[in-house]
């Protein structure tokens, strides 16, 4: 269960991309706080405290802005192209007793017998969209794959040991993980027939000679 992490931020007066860029050069991440009918605030968070928070996976944060503390949800994280630097954070004000919709990562536990037997583990779903109390947002949802054999799959409906307040919003028949037989691989590429071109949309074919 996610315990609220504390984060200290400062209100920033200058907005705009240029000022945000200058802040990033100083090792500060621009961020916003909004929600609950209050005015949105532009804040800045030191990157050295923001990065561990994002890496930890905690969603609910006690955000201290100029001495006042608010409970907020880390709503969105923006990274640069290469995923090296944090660009921006979005925080949404929440009540402790409020129910919220949030994406929670899935963590696979155990070793599937199907992998030992030569199968491939495929995981189409890496995060679940859950409805839960703001103070009870799970850090992750563990899925046990100890009994997953080749050809078997675990669906959303198979998840039973969830915290009591958590309701999964994904379709019940969505596949979380399945173990498949490795398909025969064609290593030899067939040579491309010469002169084969894709069909050109809107171009009429020639009727032939004459």
């Amino acid at each position: 269960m996610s315990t609220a992490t504390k984060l200290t931020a400062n209100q920033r007066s200058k907005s705009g991309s240029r000022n945000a860029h200058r802040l990033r050069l100083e090792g500060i991440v621009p961020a916003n706080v909004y929600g609950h009918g209050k005015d949105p605030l532009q804040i800045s968070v030191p990157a050295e405290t923001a990065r561990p928070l994002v890496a930890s996976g905690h969603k609910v944060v006690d955000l201290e802005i100029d001495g006042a503390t608010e409970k907020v949800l880390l709503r969105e994280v923006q990274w640069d192209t290469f995923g090296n630097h944090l660009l921006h954070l979005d925080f949404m004000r929440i009540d402790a007793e409020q129910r919220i919709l949030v994406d929670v990562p899935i963590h696979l536990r155990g070793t599937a017998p199907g992998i030992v037997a030569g199968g491939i583990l495929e995981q189409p779903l890496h995060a679940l969209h859950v409805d839960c109390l703001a103070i009870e947002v799970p850090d992750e949802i563990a899925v046990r794959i100890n009994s997953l054999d080749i050809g078997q799959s675990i669906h959303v409906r198979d998840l039973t040991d969830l915290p009591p307040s958590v309701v999964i919003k994904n379709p019940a028949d969505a596949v979380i993980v399945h173990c498949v037989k490795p398909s025969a691989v064609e290593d030899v590429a067939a040579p491309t027939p010469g002169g084969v071109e894709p069909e050109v949309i809107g171009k009429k074919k020639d009727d032939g000679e004459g």
Partner: protein
Amino acid sequence: MALMPKRVKHRKSQRGRIKGNATRGNTVAFGEFGLQSTQAGHIRATTIEACRIAANQYIRGEGKLYIRIFPDKPKTARPLETRMGTGKGEPDHWVAVVKPGTVMFEIAGASRDAARECFNRVAHKLPVGCRLVERRPGT
């Protein structure tokens, strides 16, 4: 058979310029590990095919390979030993336009070491610089 579109609106396209970094297709979306481009470039369909074969020969049965780029840009060429002029050449091959940050290949169901070794083999075939990236937590 090398990848190419089934239908196109125009047979030939202008060369174009590759500006800026990738703002989409720059995260690992399907597997656990990805091969991200650090340079801009054009990847030929035959190169993608060579990469696919090299990767599948290594990860055979150990994981699944995802190809995240598609060669949808035609490149023309003039026949050998012909004089200049008489217009643009005929379509010769297809390329995928890759910007810095594009995740070109992904692997699911393989260990980190296997993915690293596999992508090392793939990277040798590519005309752009690459690096191994992992799925970001929460994506």
